[in-house]
């Protein structure tokens, strides 16, 4: 477990060093190298841990209580957290390297701040993954939420970024409220936060089942907020206001998958409440389809990827809900790799042309062939083309859902898979092969090696993971034979349609859009969800706030003003009584005596 501690401790040490040592922070590039060095060692240790056989739990008492500690902290290393360690450290490392080139125009102090946040995020995410108790997980859960807020709002002088950061924070907080309520209720029902103890109770069927559905639903709310499940998904597209590497790391590969991780981690508890599981599966599938339709009409390359992330998270959740959490977790890992690849590739494109709008790109294949190849590898993986990583994980999910007997969910996911291929290739065709639209003043060029290196590494990994499964045929899932064919057919269909519409332009876009006008209209307006939330916020929240404000200003303040004015007046009146004439005081004494007489009459014992 020592190496696990090293994996966890190095990012923390790096964060503390950058945050506390002012000269280091002011020299952002140096801070960056500190963070990168820490992550390299952490990655090495994570790999050693993953490949090694050490698994287990370390628990230390935290909050003392009667009859044993109320809460504990510790580290939990198992087959769920070990690969996550590798994913988090790997993507963190690559993103930090990439950022050094991507953000080379930033002022140095600002860059130092960036690397402090990055290191803190890596620490928090690793801590979340390694948590052996719900409470500790919640602490790190909030920490990653904080880092997400800080990094989305990295360019805090931009109003859009500041707003997006707040939106992300509040929307996820809504879910977190459920999460904390759930774990507290779970604790009051069982007396423990520890996974091991809870799972043992679940196995031995000593877990109190009444109320468990509510508890697990509340915990799922937290997961839904973090993993951008409908209807709490609205923050993720806006989160793209942060720097692109941040989007790659936090809002694609790691943090947003925390919800899926949580559901996978809590699997032994979720299986006890099939109703909640069914809800998770359905919401996941619905989210996947909804996000995919929005991705089809989006013109901002990062937002397309954001919607695709939501969609893929829907896939994972659906798998977890349909009784195949390992398939969902598998997809989480592969998706983490190739979605980071896609985001970083998109970042390279944006870096080159200086815009997010795909319709202002085009013909980039000629000037950035390396980036093009990399992006296409990612696209193929996301579309689920054999033999890339995404194919196997998506097939595992479809197989799991099919085996779980959720045919409705299965159909929705299959349709989503088709749309996934379509919208990704749409981006590819428009961005890289479209007719050379004007690029403005920018002269697109290949990114520097510091950006290309991580990109190639991720591309190679995407292929290598795929090949490993293609050759090894591993995996405990044995999907029905027709499923592979169906997957490929869906991907090919999506590719074909995209090619026909945007590549070869056989089918005019209008011809497809017109029959689907309603969906097109709704999807372009994000199904009015943001508008609804806005209306709720303005109507209910602001109205309520105004009411409270009015009450405070006029009722509470008025009461206090009346009290203070009364005190002043009374004091003034009482001052006049003090005439300074001794005889007036004697009158006072006499009246006091008379009052005592009356009082004595009043209370005379009968």
């Amino acid at each position, binding site marked *: 477990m020592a190496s696990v501690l090293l994996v966890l401790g190095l990012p923390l040490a790096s964060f503390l060093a950058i945050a506390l040592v002012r000269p280091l922070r002011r020299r952002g590039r140096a801070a960056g190298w500190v963070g990168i060095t820490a992550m390299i060692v952490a990655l090495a240790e994570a790999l050693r841990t993953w490949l090694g056989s050490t698994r287990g739990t370390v628990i230390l008492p935290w909050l003392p209580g009667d009859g044993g500690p109320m809460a504990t902290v510790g580290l939990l290393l198992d087959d769920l957290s070990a690969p996550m360690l590798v994913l988090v450290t790997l993507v963190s490392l690559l993103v930090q390297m990439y950022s050094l080139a991507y953000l080379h125009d930033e002022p140095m102090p600002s860059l130092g701040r960036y690397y402090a946040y990055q290191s803190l995020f890596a620490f928090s995410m690793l801590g979340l993954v390694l948590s052996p108790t719900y409470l500790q997980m919640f602490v790190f859960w909030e920490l990653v939420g904080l880092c997400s807020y800080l990094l989305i709002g990295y360019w805090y002088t931009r109003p859009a970024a500041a707003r997006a950061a707040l939106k992300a924070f509040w929307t996820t907080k809504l879910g977190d409220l459920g999460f904390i309520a759930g774990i507290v209720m779970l604790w009051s029902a069982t007396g423990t936060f520890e996974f091991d103890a809870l799972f043992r109770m679940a196995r031995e069927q000593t877990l109190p089942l009444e109320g468990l559905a509510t508890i697990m639903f509340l915990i799922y709310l937290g997961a839904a907020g973090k993993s951008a499940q409908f209807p709490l998904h609205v923050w993720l597209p806006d989160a793209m206001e942060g720097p692109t590497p941040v989007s790659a790391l936090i809002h694609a590969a790691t943090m947003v998958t925390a919800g899926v991780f949580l559901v996978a981690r809590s699997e032994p508890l979720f299986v006890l409440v099939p109703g909640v599981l069914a809800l998770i599966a359905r919401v996941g599938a619905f989210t996947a389809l909804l996000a995919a339709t929005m991705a089809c009409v989006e013109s901002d390359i990062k937002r397309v990827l954001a919607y695709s992330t939501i969609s893929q998270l829907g896939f994972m959740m659906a798998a977890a809900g349909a009784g195949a959490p390992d398939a969902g977790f598998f997809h989480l890992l592969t998706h983490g790799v190739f979605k980071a690849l896609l985001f970083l590739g998109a970042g390279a494109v944006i870096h080159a042309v200086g815009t997010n709008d795909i319709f202002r790109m085009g013909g980039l294949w000629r000037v950035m062939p390396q980036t093009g190849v990399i992006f296409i590898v990612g696209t193929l993986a996301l579309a689920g083309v054999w033999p890339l990583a995404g194919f196997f994980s998506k097939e595992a999910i479809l197989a799991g859902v099919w085996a779980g007997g959720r045919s409705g969910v299965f159909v929705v996911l299959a349709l989503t898979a088709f749309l996934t291929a379509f919208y990704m290739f749409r981006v590819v065709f428009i961005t890289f092969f479209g007719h050379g639209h004007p690029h403005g003043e920018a002269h697109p060029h290949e990114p520097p090696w510091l950006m290309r290196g991580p990109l190639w590494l991720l591309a190679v990994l995407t292929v290598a993971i795929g090949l490993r499964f293609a050759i090894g045929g591993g995996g405990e899932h044995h999907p029905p034979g027709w499923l592979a064919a169906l997957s490929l057919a869906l991907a090919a269909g999506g590719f074909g349609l995209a090619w026909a519409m945007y590549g070869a332009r056989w089918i005019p876009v209008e011809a497809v859009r017109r029959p689907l006008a309603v969906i097109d209209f709704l999807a372009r307006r994000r199904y009015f969800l943001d508008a609804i939330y806005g209306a709720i916020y303005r109507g209910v929240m602001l109205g309520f706030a105004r009411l409270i404000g009015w009450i405070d200003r006029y009722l509470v303040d008025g009461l206090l003003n009346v009290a203070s004015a009364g005190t002043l007046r009374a004091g003034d009146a009482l001052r006049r009584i003090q005439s300074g004439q001794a005889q007036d005081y004697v009158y006072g004494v*006499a009246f006091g005596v*008379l009052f005592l*007489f009356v009082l004595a009459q009043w209370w005379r014992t009968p």
Partner: protein
Amino acid sequence: MTAATLGFWATAVVLLGSSLAVVLTPNLFHSVLFLAVALVATGVIFLFLAAPFLFGAQLLLYAGGVVVLVVFAIMLTEKIVGQRIRQASHGLVNGAIVAAAVFVGIVGFLVQAGPPPAARPPLSDVTAALGREIVGPYAAAFELLGVLLVAALLGALYFARED
């Protein structure tokens, strides 16, 4: 009606009459003289209550000391001011109402307290008993009283000295 009762009521009338004169007469000097009468009458009432020692103390300290002191004071201040001191009253009605109310309150209490117990026979030698008490259990209080008197004397001197 026995002689004692008759004597008591006569003394009481004198006491009340001179008291009223104290608070009502416009001449301050007369007021002081009436006070002397009232104090002597009180002393006589002490006699009726079988406390001859207190009668003596009353005559010496009050009717002697206090009245002489007050007369001195009046004459002294008149000399300072250089005119006769007026002794007017004000707010007579208010004062009368409040004083009457207090009186009614006190008497109300007395009435409610019910009939008093029968009187014990008078002590054989009150003065001797009083002396024993003073040097016995109340010796400390008595000494403190001496201290108080000295302090009052010094205080009066301090206030009144020319400076």
